[in-house]
């Protein structure tokens, strides 16, 4: 009888194909290590220059209209009592990233934490005690090596969904976003051109909403089909994946981006992050910020325009007022009169409005009346 023996694959995993990006990242990591070797050779203390991510080193670039990081750096040395541990951790993250790249795998930031966590031989101390120690180091490495997290083969959680008349290829699979049912295509956290490529697109613009519940409304009413747009949401403050996707849609496919967010300071802030970038990820602004994004609503004057009732008002609390004033001071809002008026009006109203408030008029008021009207009027805030 013929025996079917299946030999276990003797060879190791198939050879990993390094992309150009990977090679570049590897190069940066190597130079990090080289610095140590050279310093040790010359008998000097090794160090790494990490661009400073504090507010003092962040600037609003007027011409590019994005938040940019300045040139300030912090020096992290091995032979400094306060920095020795974080220096060591920085190098560990570098070596961890190299390992991932070499293996052609990605992992979450928590995964990297577990990969690098161990007891230092000869002591009772752990390299990383908690993930909270590890995350900032990962960010440090990102800025120091000028590589995005994804380039280090680290991903964050998925959040956000997308539907629309666009077909794309994700890790080799073809995705038709017009046929993603009620759930939509879950936007991955790494949407680099190596992973995600655009195949075919007939959409004319992108509508980005804040919450997934609002998105569902639009999806159920097939708004995107009627108006030929791509519909995305970020689940609140949009994560890097969503922002990157929007950025690519805007720049590669030349699609304008409109935002439909709540009428409150948080909504304004989300808009500002999409538009200008965030302080925390200032080094990413040029890859994620969309200065040409537009604010569709909800606006402070919509209360009157849509004839809403007092029952949908939510009173502004102390924090809201403080936040609103703060946002009004942001350099990218301070110079814009319409925005100043908008924020002033909200403060004068004394209340905030969620997009769902429009449901009090009609369940589909937002998709059938509100949004189409605003789009037709081309009445946006910049």
């Amino acid at each position: 009888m013929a025996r079917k023996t299946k030999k276990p694959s003797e060879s190791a995993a198939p050879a990993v194909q390094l992309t150009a990006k990977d090679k570049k990242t590897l190069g940066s990591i190597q130079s990090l290590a080289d610095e140590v070797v050279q310093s040790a050779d010359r008998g000097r203390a090794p160090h790494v220059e990490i661009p400073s991510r504090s507010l003092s080193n962040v600037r609003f670039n007027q011409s590019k209209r994005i938040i940019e990081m300045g040139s300030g750096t912090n020096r992290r040395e091995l032979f400094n009592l306060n920095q020795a541990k974080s220096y060591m951790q920085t190098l560990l993250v570098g070596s961890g990233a190299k390992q991932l790249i070499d293996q052609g795998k990605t992992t979450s930031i928590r995964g990297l934490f577990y990969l690098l966590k161990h007891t230092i031989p000869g002591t009772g101390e752990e390299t990383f005690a908690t993930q909270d120690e590890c995350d900032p180091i990962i960010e440090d490495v990102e800025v120091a090596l000028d590589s995005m997290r994804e380039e280090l083969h680290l991903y964050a959680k998925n959040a956000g969904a997308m539907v629309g008349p666009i077909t794309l290829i994700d890790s080799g699979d073809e995705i038709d976003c017009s046929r993603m049912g009620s759930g939509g295509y879950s936007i991955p956290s790494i949407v680099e051109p190596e992973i995600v490529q655009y195949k075919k697109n007939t959409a004319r613009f992108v509508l980005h909403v804040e919450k997934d519940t609002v998105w569902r409304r639009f999806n159920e009413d097939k708004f995107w089909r009627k108006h030929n747009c791509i519909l995305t949401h970020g689940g609140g403050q949009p994560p890097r994946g969503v922002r990157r996707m929007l950025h690519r849609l805007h720049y590669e496919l030349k699609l304008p981006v409109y935002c439909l967010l709540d009428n409150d300071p948080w909504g304004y802030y989300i808009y500002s992050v999409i538009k200008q970038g965030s302080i925390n990820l200032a080094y990413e602004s040029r890859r994620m910020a969309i200065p040409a994004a537009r604010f569709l609503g909800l606006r402070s004057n919509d209360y009157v325009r849509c004839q809403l009732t007092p029952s949908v008002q939510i009173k502004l609390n102390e924090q809201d007022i403080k936040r609103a004033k703060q946002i009004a001071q942001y350099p990218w809002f301070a110079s814009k009169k319409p925005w100043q008026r908008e924020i002033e009006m909200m403060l004068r109203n004394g209340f905030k409005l969620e997009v769902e408030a429009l449901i009090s008029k009609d369940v589909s008021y937002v998709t059938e009346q509100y949004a189409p009207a605003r789009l037709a009027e081309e009445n946006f805030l910049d």
Partner: protein
Amino acid sequence: MAENDKHPRRRATAESMAATQRDISVSEFFAKNRHLLGFDNPRKALLTAVKEAVDNSLDACEEAGIIPELWVHMEAAGTNRFKVGIQDNGPGIVRKQIPLIFGKLLYGSKFHRLRMSRGQQGIGISAAGMYGMLTTGKPVKIISITSLKKPAHYFEIQIDTKRNQPEIVNGRGEGEEIPSGDKGQRYIAEHGIEWVSHYPTPDEHSPHHKEVRSGTRVTIELEGRYVRGRGSVDDYLEQTAIANPHVTIHYIDPDNHETTYARSTGQLPPEPREIKPHPYGIELGRLVTMLKDTTGGTMAQFLTDSFSRVSPGVAKQICDAAKISTRANPKRIGRQEADALYQAIQNTKISAPATDCISPIGEPLILKGLHQQVPGEFFCAATRPPAVYRGNPFLIEVGLAYGGSSPTQKVSLETLTDLLSESDARSVRQFLLTTFDGIGAAGAERIMAEARMGARQSPSKLKKEEIALLHGAMKNVNLSEGQSMQVLRYANRVPLQFQPAACAITQSVIANNWRSYGLSQSRGQLPSGPVTIMVHMASVWVPFTSESKEAIASYPEVTKELRLGLQAVGRKLAMYLNQRKRVQQEGERREIFLRYLGEVATAVSSIKGYGEGKKKDLYGQLLDVAKRKTAVADTQLDDRGRKKAEPVAEDFGENVLIVDVEQHGQENKETV
């Protein structure tokens, strides 16, 4: 009849009461009030007897300019009875004086003069003899030799308490004369008289040759209780050795163990001068007596002769203020005039007394003395300049020892077993607290937790394994945290053993803020830490709170000086503790770097794809850089790579002794 009596029946009349009233002699009074002299209970009595004899011996030797050598011999003589013999190598006592000194209360050389000395009133030794007689019926035995060429004298004496006179019991009321030379030796041996005739092997500091040339030995048999630990004879002798580094004491305890407290210097302290009283310190009554007794013919003479710091000019000022002629006869001064004189003295400006009448121990000897007896790594001392209270000159000296192991860690298993069986403490915890100095409640708790001992166990009923467990726990538990400061109090070089709470010294130590010097301290308590502090008050007249000379009274001038002295040593301690912390931190620094170097080398090697060899090289290189970066720590690591407690750039100033106990046994480094 009875019902018609207007007054209740009188029990006695004034006359019948008068018939029973009579003189009470001093010795009768003290016989009935023993507690005033320190003979309240058997334990204290034993200690007081030894103390009085030792005080006298030391004073006599120093006055004669002889380097003191003492023998203290304690023997059990029945239940609760001890025979105590103290011998010195002093000048000896002449025949005529011996009965008076030992058999008459309030007889002595020190009462009438103002001079720094240990005994202040001349009660001490005769009271001890009296106590011995009262409790055992045995007389005091004294043998004294003034020179090898002259005969020695041996007396057995009792006090006639009614008349305050000595009664000689031996030699048909005359005492015995012992011929000198070999005949004398045989006599001594035959009659069972105790006497140590030869010195043990001389040490580097001893100028004495083989034979004891002169001295006195007093033997008293009395009721007492022998304990070890706090308030014991052993403690007292050890503390005496600390404050008197020129003395050697040979001590044989009731268990026949011999301990020698060897001297650490061959120099006698400088001789204190006698001074005349200062006018400010004199009370009215005394003034009146002095006026009556003076030999000076005129008031001016009386004032300049009887007092210190009174010149003819000052005398005139006083007389003018009192409206008395300088030529007046002192014996004719009446009460009112004496009063005016007293007021005038208080109001006249008179300069402070000369202070060369006090001889301090001095900082170098304090350091030596402490170092000899107390374990520690850091010693410092401060002697305050002399000051004055109520016309009496005095000065304060402070010595501090820090570090070393606590007394509990030094105890051997046998000693512990002995201590436990002797103790009358009701629980082990109490036993620990009372027997050993410097354990706080927390320290006792820790020892008991380590030894798994219950709170209610009685110390005398512990089994062998339990004792062994306790001993192990005591050795292991490092009490530095729980240990409280040990305070040794001295007045005129005599250790004070009792009533610490009432003493100005303890009160000043507690009131001092030790937190600012690096020790932890709860409010109203002694600070904690492995610290021993010794405080010495030297004065022509030490102010005690009571007759038993156990605690020093808190005059404001005295408390002020105490405070300043404590602060002086506190500052030095703070410097030492800071420096120690720094050295520790430097050491930790290097350790931190070393820890991470390995990781860094590994990470880099994995990035660069290094093999083991290259990784080791890289590690070595980084190590070199680390060494250079932590060069400071290097200068403090000795050739064996362990830490030294050596001050690098620290200037402790004078009078500090830092001991490196870890390496090479006891290597001293003195910074002066």
